[in-house]
């Protein structure tokens, strides 16, 4: 415990936590984008969209060994803890940094720091707000931006993203997320000390490449729905999905 | 009359130092060491290594430097390397040969036992530095690499790119910081020593000014060590750092310490020429460049072509022609004088006509641009930064510049001055380099003094005196403090029209003109007339801004100029009295037809030690005769 405490007390330790939690959240995004892309694979023979089926699978994953929703909630708890820690240490570090540099230069010029890197706090804040909004929008359905019905993921997407404002908004946030990841993923290598001069270039390319793939994967969904190229709303009975 | 007992051990030179430690030196036991307080002024290679070593032994050390950190001392700027007779190349090197090279390079004006000891300790310095983590250049097999340097026929110079001084200083600095953390050394940064306190005939402390608050304070100790470097800045333009000054040494001289050979100034042959009146300092290009660079000037004074377009036949490789055996690797003074000689003949290059080419064309053709660049990377970069010329495309322009001062406080074999309890180490003393220092030997001397000699010899003095004999309540401290404050008030009250910088610049011109690369009777006498005039004007027309109770860099500088003015006179006097040529000291009256220095061993085989006799009174010359038992006198000859 002592080790954890003293690690947490140091800035490098906090950054270590930020990168490990970042890695968890990044892993989640990879899974998320893989799931999202199921909107393009059509429906089962019964006419159930693959993505709806996938959503249902997440709820019952592990049955019968573990009860329904357990795996999903476990993942949610892990992600929530990761997110809270990620935000917490980053805010703590930011406060520390503000204290370390109380007076700014009258004239300031940057040679290397990129805007996405300098704006990590802003992009992070936007992403945090978006996560809350996104959960209220597509998970709980509390925020209605079109017709919403629990479990009918494909239809919910169709309803929401047919509204160009919603679709464009999602695309914008995803681009911001991309910029956040681009610095964050490479930063993770550096913070964990995995970086070195020989690997640095490949790691940067890897970080940027992976980020671009993920972000393209995310934005292709709202754009497809908005442009009307997706087949419209699908109707099927709820029993087909849940099996009872 | 000074008592100059050099305490040289008798008997054969080979084991003299060991015998001296075994038979002649008293030691202080580990239990007693913490009772003794030692003041070390200066934190360069000598000061830092001495303070760290003595701290580690258990002495209570207080170290002072005027910079904001001990790591800034000017030892950091030494580029080329450090000599050690390791004989790793198997090219016939030995302690004896390093001794021989140093003594011969110094033109037989050094005490040979000191020089031999230096050569003997050189190998231990490398071991010590490597153990501290100094990353010397390595060969592919992982063994240490060597290069050769001016004036020698073996490869014995160890180096870290072109930043050997920096790495060695950082080694000494880290050792010092280790001791500061261990609380055996207390560091006082931004604190300048303004005077020495002598009580009951012994050096007992110093008076310092805190440069940030302006506060004057006294510090008492059982011994005082001056590691305050050289005084090349008396010429205003030199390769020294802007802060280098003679104040600590000169004040010690005024308090009774003998000043030895003040006129021995080394003019380094490879510095970047000055570009205008505003020039504030000169930048050295490491002498190691002479390994691959060929020095030449156009044969025709009217030459207008770009250097690359001048055919071989029209180039005058004057060092190679005049000194076929050593060629471009002749000792520094020979190279410097020859550069001045060809420029005086109108063959000089560059906008001022005071420069010669240092050409890497042949080396690049021979070894390839990559290989040459790899060897001198940061030197080339530095040159290009300053001049906007690329040395791989067009030859460098170089010119001699004041670089090192062999003179300094007189010390005995134990590195103690004639003032009991006052030690002087590194460039600040006169001991090891005679009338000329070989390249890559200054780092060696500083570290031999600081790591290995002083920590042992200082015990001999301390063990004979009870610890804490005198504290700052002694009236001598109050007196000196009063004098120090008095001078500061006097400086601030002149209220004239000229900055201290302008006086310093003018003094520098007088010194360069009359006491520079070559000297003569008339010039020196004129110098001795001009300096008092300038001093008089200084005290009438100096303008200092601000007050003494805060950070006032102009005031710091003015105080240093006061001592430079007095000291410049002492240098000219010494140069005038030394009516011979030796090493760097070339009296035009005494040279061979080829312009070689002609020594007069009958009359001048001695150390000239000056004794302060009071304001406005000529100092008294004392002589320490030099013996040449191990290495008989011979004419210096780099031609065959």
């Amino acid at each position, binding site marked *: 415990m*002592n080790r954890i405490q003293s690690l947490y007390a140091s800035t490098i330790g906090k950054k270590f936590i930020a990168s490990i939690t970042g890695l968890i959240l990044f892993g989640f995004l990879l899974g998320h984008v893989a799931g999202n892309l199921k909107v393009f694979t059509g429906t089962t023979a019964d006419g159930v969209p693959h993505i709806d089926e996938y959503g249902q699978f997440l709820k019952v994953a592990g049955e019968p060994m573990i009860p329904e929703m357990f795996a999903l909630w476990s993942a949610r708890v892990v992600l929530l803890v990761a997110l809270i820690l990620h935000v917490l240490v980053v805010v703590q570090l930011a406060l520390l*940094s503000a204290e370390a540099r109380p007076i700014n230069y009258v004239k300031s010029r940057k040679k290397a720091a990129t805007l996405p890197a300098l704006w990590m706090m802003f992009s992070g804040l936007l992403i945090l707000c978006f996560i809350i909004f996104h959960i209220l929008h597509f998970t709980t359905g509390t925020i209605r931006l079109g017709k919403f019905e629990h479990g009918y993921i494909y239809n919910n997407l169709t309803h929401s993203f047919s509204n160009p404002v919603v679709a464009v908004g999602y695309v914008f946030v995803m681009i911001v997320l991309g910029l956040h990841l681009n610095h964050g993923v490479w930063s993770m290598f550096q913070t964990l000390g*995995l970086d070195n001069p020989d690997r640095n270039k490949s790691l940067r390319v890897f970080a940027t490449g992976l980020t671009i793939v993920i972000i393209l994967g995310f934005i292709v969904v709202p754009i497809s729905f908005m442009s009307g190229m997706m087949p419209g709303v699908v109707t099927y009975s709820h029993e087909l999905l849940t099996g009872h | 009359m000074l008592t100059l007992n050099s305490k040289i051990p008798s008997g054969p030179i080979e084991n003299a130092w060991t015998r001296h430690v075994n038979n002649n030196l008293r030691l202080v036991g580990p239990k007693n060491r913490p009772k003794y307080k030692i003041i070390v002024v200066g934190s360069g290679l000598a000061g830092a290594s001495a303070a*760290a070593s003595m701290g580690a032994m258990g002495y209570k050390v207080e170290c002072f430097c005027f910079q904001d950190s001990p790591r800034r001392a000017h030892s950091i700027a030494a580029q080329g390397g450090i000599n050690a007779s390791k004989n790793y190349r198997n090219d016939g090197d030995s302690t004896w040969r390093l001794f021989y090279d140093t003594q011969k390079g110094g033109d037989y004006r050094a005490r040979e036992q000191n020089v031999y000891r230096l050569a003997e300790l050189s190998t231990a310095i490398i071991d010590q530095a490597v153990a501290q983590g100094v990353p010397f250049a390595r060969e592919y097999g992982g063994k*240490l690499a060597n290069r050769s340097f001016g004036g020698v026929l073996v490869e014995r110079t160890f180096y870290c790119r072109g930043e050997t001084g920096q790495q060695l200083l950082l080694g000494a600095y880290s050792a010092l910081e280790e001791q500061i953390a261990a609380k055996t050394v207390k560091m006082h940064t931004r604190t300048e020593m303004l005077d020495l306190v002598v009580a009951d005939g012994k050096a007992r402390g110093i008076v310092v000014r805190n440069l940030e608050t302006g506060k004057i304070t006294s510090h008492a100790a059982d011994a005082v060590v001056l590691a305050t470097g050289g005084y090349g800045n008396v010429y205003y333009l030199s390769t020294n*750092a802007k802060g280098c000054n003679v104040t600590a040494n000169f004040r010690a001289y005024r308090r009774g310490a003998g000043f030895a050979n003040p006129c021995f100034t080394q003019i380094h042959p490879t510095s970047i020429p000055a570009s205008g009146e505003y020039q504030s300092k000169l930048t050295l290009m490491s002498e190691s460049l002479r390994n691959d660079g060929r020095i030449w000037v156009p044969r025709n004074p009217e030459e207008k072509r770009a250097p690359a377009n001048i055919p071989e036949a029209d180039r005058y490789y004057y060092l190679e022609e005049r000194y076929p055996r050593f060629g471009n690797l002749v000792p520094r003074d020979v190279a410097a004088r020859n550069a001045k000689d060809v420029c005086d003949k109108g063959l000089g290059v560059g906008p001022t006509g005071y420069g010669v080419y240092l050409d890497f064309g042949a080396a690049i053709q021979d070894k390839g641009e990559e290989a040459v660049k790899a060897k001198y990377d940061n030197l080339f970069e530095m040159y290009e930064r*300053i001049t906007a010329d690329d040395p791989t495309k067009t030859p460098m322009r170089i010119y001699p510049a004041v670089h090192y001062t062999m003179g300094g406080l007189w010390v005995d074999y134990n590195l103690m001055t004639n003032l009991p309890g006052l030690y002087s180490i590194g460039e600040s003393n006169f001991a090891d380099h005679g009338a000329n220092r070989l390249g890559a030997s200054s780092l060696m001397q500083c570290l031999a003094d600081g790591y290995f000699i002083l920590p042992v010899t200082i015990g001999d003095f301390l063990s004979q005196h009870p610890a804490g004999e005198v504290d700052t309540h002694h009236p001598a401290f109050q007196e000196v403090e009063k004098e120090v404050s008095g001078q500061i008030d006097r400086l601030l009250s002149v209220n004239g029209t000229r900055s201290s*910088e302008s006086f310093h610049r003018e003094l520098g011109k007088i010194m360069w003109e009359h006491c520079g690369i070559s000297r003569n009777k008339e010039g020196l006498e004129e110098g001795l007339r001009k300096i008092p005039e300038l001093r008089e004007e200084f005290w009438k027309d100096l303008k200092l801004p601000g007050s003494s109770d805060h950070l006032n*860099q102009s005031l710091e500088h003015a105080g240093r100029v006061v001592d430079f003015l007095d000291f410049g006179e002492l240098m000219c006097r010494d140069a005038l009295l030394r009516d011979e040529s030796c090493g760097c000291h070339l009296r035009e009256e005494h040279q061979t037809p080829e312009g070689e220095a002609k020594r007069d061993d009958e009359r001048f085989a001695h150390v000239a030690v000056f004794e302060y006799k009071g304001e406005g009174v000529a100092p008294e010359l004392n002589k320490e005769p030099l013996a040449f038992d191990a290495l008989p006198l011979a004419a210096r000859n780099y031609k065959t």
Partner: protein
Amino acid sequence: MKIKLHVWRQSTRTDKGRMESYELDNVVPDMSFLEMMDTLNEKLTIEGHDPVAFDHDCREGVCGMCSMVINGEAHGPKSETTTCQLYMRHFKDGAEIYIEPWRASAFPVVKDLVVDRSAFDRIIQAGGFISNHSGPKPDPNSIPIEPEVAETSLDAATCIGCGACVAACPNGSAMLFTAAKASHLGMLPQGQPERFDRAQSMVKQMESEGFGSCRNYAECEAQCPKGISIAFIGRLNSDFLRASLLEPVDRRGEMKSQ
């Protein structure tokens, strides 16, 4: 050349400080930046004003004393160049130049452009050394070091401790300085015994001095006059994490007399 200068003036540590403007019209392109400052100070002195205080010493780019933020960049616009090695030919005639001190709470301003960098010394005191006494040591060739390792170690050791990394970092972090020293020693065989202790204690000291945290902007590397790579920061991170998570705790046991 004619230039207009905006210089930070602050008489003491506690003074609030302000920017003041000066014009200079006798500037020569071959002048170094500090010679230009000398010219300004000469003018101010003659006119009876307080000259601008600034740190400088060797004026050849190695002592690390000079410390000016010039037009928003530590040591000015030319990369891998200290202020003292910057020349006026890098500025245009008629240029406006802003000169400010290093800004970081761990580097309080002493006067004008002079700051207190003693925090760096204390970081070194915390472990930036290989414990040693002076005396006989093994022959260096008995411990061969690959030239690549020696060279990389020297790349790190080239740090001149000027503090530009802190001045450049928007977070006022001293990671580049600390990492350079820890890596210099940590890569060499001589530095192994204290490697992990060193990483921990230097970082601890760095943090207690009030430096900010590294956010991987790489601005320090870009403004470092010696071009020291942030790869060393990665190295220190790795050593620090290894020390904190894996290495045995309290390895320095007590000496018990028999």
